[in-house]
């Protein structure tokens, strides 16, 4: 018979009992979810689930440090607290390194990317409008929209990063939208 207390389950897990381990992890997962949600109420469900998984991985990695003569929950919560603090540290590091920009639909498959073309009418007007764009934007539009190149190919051909190409395309599309709106 499988024991019911987390202490006994963990002890069995340390001995290599898979069933006890599965039961233990299944029992602690909803508790972890609840605790993390309470402490990080601002996080999305997906982020909370990521943290739950981080804690489970940590529990697995350091299961040898659990002493079966001591209560299990303080051991678990110490690991959880540590993972939460690490999560904050990682989040702030990422925030300092990364610049977010609006995700732009730049492929022909995306509806948003095709709506403007329907309004263009004359092909010649469109080419003239594109010629009036700054060089980087013009290159991005020509490669990605007119020549149907992939972001990777365009990046290789122009020497621009894919991120820069996306931004340039987004700006170009906005400028073209404005130009044709003002007509």
């Amino acid at each position, binding site marked *: 018979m499988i024991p019911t207390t987390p202490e006994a389950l963990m002890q069995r897990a340390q001995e290599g009992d898979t069933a006890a381990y599965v039961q233990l992890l299944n029992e602690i997962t909803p508790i972890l979810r609840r605790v993390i949600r309470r402490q990080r109420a601002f996080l999305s469900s997906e982020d909370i*689930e990521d943290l739950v998984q981080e804690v489970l*991985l940590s529990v697995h990695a350091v299961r040898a440090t659990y002493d079966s003569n001591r209560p299990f929950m303080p051991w678990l919560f110490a690991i959880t607290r540590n993972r939460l603090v690490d999560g904050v540290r990682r989040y702030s590091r990422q925030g300092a390194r990364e610049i977010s920009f609006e995700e732009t639909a730049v492929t022909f498959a995306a509806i948003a990317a095709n709506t403007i073309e329907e309004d263009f009418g004359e092909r010649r007007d469109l080419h003239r409008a594109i010629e009036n764009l700054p060089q980087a934007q013009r290159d991005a539009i020509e490669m990605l929209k007119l020549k149907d190149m992939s972001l990777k190919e365009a990046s290789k051909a122009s020497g621009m990063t894919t991120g820069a190409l996306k931004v340039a395309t987004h700006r170009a599309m906005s400028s073209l939208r404005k130009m044709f709106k003002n007509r």
Partner: protein
Amino acid sequence: MTRRTDNLIDALSRDLKAVTPLPRPWIRTLRWLGILIPYCAIAVMLLHFIGKLPSPVVDSQFLMEQSFAILTGITAAMAAFASTIPGQGRSYLAWPLIPLLGWLATLGEACFRNTSGGISFQHNLLCLPFIIILGTPPAIILWMMLRRGAPLTPSWTAALGALAAAGFGNFCVRFVHAEDVSLMLIVWHIGGIFLLTATTSAFGRFLLNWRATKKVSA
């Protein structure tokens, strides 16, 4: 995403291997000493034999100083091991305090007595090889042992580990370091220990990155 967590649980339990629970901190400390005491005893004897070094004057002051030094090393090692156990509480931080204060007090008192003969901060750098020979193995072995735990507060663990290694190393070095100039000992040895402890603590997260040291097969 709950599905992903279920998958993770499956993956973690699939190849579950039995693990030996880490022994209590005091047992781990005894094991650490068990490796180091024979090594240091042999090293001290060899250094005396090869270097024809003068033996230290074994008086009550020397015995007190050595007792507090080794006690600082032992309690700091126990505290360092305790700090790698999640949920242990923080009382372990106080364990090395009393022996450390006692150690400083014995040195301070001797220093006060000796100032009548003039103060010298000069240090004989010949003891540097002794410090390396007798101080490095305690630090390396302790670091390897600490990595088996989960140093959730790596800065504290690293600081306590450095203090333990320094306390034990200093205990051994005093057997081959016959110069009993306590002010010099305070400035160079104790100052060095605090510098080592602070530096190690600052790099604790790098030295004892517990997540990076563990392998998860999932």
